[in-house]
């Protein structure tokens, strides 16, 4: 029987909630595994889950240096969408969307996936043309995308300033109705629990400090909790990719770590029922079920491993917010924080075997890897289990930069702070 159901909820409510099983065991690391996954973020946990579920590989450890969910999986603004331009991204992010749509049932854990749509606002005719092009590309791949008029936009989000006298007048927008939000912590906890129930050891407070080698081959790791060996070692550490890979002697990668900030306002009555993006700068927002506006903007724009941002960006984000919603001027900001983003040189991820024998690499998520969590783990597990990529992640190689087959969705070139 499913562990969480109406029946067990009722039964536990009547018996003082004393009989719930721990969501995941506090596992002690064992000396040897078939697979070690470094990084207990969304991607590491979903990788472990799909290794067990899809490939029957259960002798697996996830090693997390802090507590589970302390990285970006617990810091993001939870937007889930698949409205990219290029076919490689269409296929990958639509697979993610398919997994999202059934995730709560699959995990028996409510991840609160809410398909409330994602609306990109256009402010110039050129921008609207670009949205039409992207919308057509999406529809060509069978993915939903719909152009919206100012009138439709105003009906959907009445608080928006759609007057012609706005600083950047809104002239239309493009909507992906199947996009939305999910509860980020629940995604981490649900995958952790699902992996644990299938035998995976989730080892928290266990930082990888070095790699054990046999010639070129990676055979294990040294950690703050001792040496652990494994046949296969998978790296999924997002913003820490540069420093972890240096421990294995990989000195350069097509990755820069930069900080992205996010914010939550005090609780408001319902004002925003979709994920909204501003087109004349970097600003986007949604409203949480508790009523807080969850919003963010651009990267701080320089290399950082600090997990905190600086004030100029705070000012910029709020000025953009007020350009769209003058009525929010007296609303107070409740919290702000930063997370480390692994910005790749073309804005697309890397999910691959190598670069050393015995090693597998998952990184380059930029500031958009939350939506990818299901498909990333699904594809990475396939790649680890079969020693070759699935067709969905085959384009996301590490050597594509040197081979000239980039997947640059925004056409920004090798300038990660502009993706």
């Amino acid at each position, binding site marked *: 029987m499913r562990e969480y159901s109406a029946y067990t909820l009722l039964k536990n409510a009547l018996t003082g909630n004393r009989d719930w099983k721990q969501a995941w065991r506090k596992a002690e690391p064992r000396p040897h595994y078939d697979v070690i996954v470094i990084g207990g973020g969304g991607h590491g946990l979903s990788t472990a889950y799909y290794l067990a579920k899809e490939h029957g590989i259960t002798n697996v450890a996830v090693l997390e240096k802090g507590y589970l969910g302390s990285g970006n999986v617990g810091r993001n603004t939870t937007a889930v969408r698949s409205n990219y331009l290029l076919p490689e991204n269409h296929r990958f992010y639509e697979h993610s969307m398919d997994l999202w749509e059934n995730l709560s049932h699959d995990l028996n854990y409510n991840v609160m996936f809410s398909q409330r749509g994602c609306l990109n606002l256009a402010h110039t005719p050129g921008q609207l043309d670009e949205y039409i092009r992207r919308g057509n590309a999406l529809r060509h791949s069978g993915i939903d995308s719909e152009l919206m008029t100012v009138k439709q936009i105003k009906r959907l989000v009445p608080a928006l300033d759609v007057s012609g006298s706005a600083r950047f007048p809104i002239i239309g927008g493009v909507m992906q109705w199947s996009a939305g939000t999910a509860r980020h912590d629940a995604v981490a906890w649900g995958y952790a629990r699902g992996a644990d129930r299938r035998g995976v050891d989730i080892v928290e407070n266990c930082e990888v400090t070095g790699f054990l080698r046999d010639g070129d081959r990676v055979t294990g790791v040294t950690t703050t909790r001792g040496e652990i060996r494994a046949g296969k070692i998978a790296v999924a550490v997002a913003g*820490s990719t*540069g420093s972890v890979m240096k421990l294995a002697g990989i000195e350069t990668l097509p990755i820069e770590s930069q900080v992205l900030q996010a914010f939550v306002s005090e609780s408001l009555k319902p004002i925003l029922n979709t994920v909204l993006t501003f087109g004349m700068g970097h600003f986007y927002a949604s409203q949480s079920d508790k009523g807080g506006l969850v919003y963010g903007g651009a990267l701080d724009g320089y290399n950082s491993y600090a997990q905190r941002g600086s004030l100029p960006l705070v000012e910029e984000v709020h000025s953009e917010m007020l350009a769209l919603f003058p009525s929010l001027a007296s609303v107070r900001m409740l919290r702000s924080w930063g997370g480390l983003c692994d910005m790749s040189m073309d804005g697309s991820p890397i999910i691959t075997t190598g670069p050393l024998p015995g090693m597998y690499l998952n990184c380059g998520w930029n500031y958009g890897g939350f939506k990818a969590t299901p498909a990333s783990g699904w594809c990475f597990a396939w790649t680890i289990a079969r020693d070759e990529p699935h067709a969905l992640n085959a384009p996301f190689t590490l050597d594509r930069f040197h081979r000239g087959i980039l997947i640059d969705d925004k056409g920004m070139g*090798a300038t990660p702070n502009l993706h």
Partner: protein
Amino acid sequence: MIIKCPWCGPRDSSEFVYQGEGGRTRPDQSSTDQSAWNAYVYDRVNTAGDHDEIWQHSGGCRSHLKIIRNTVTHKVLSVVFACDTQDQEKPA
């Protein structure tokens, strides 16, 4: 974050534009070595710690600056004019 421009003095970081990692060497214009060009364009050291980088004081004197900054603490350790560093190509 405050950056001390050698020309203008201490200024807020928002006056400056980040131009990326400073340790990269651009191959000679006439070079046909594809891997050297690829490495220059795409590969980064991405140091956690003291990091060599280029900024421009675009909201001030417009000088290009070579900066060493700690990427963990954001402390700026040294700022010099990029043209004063020896790896700068001399015009022919």
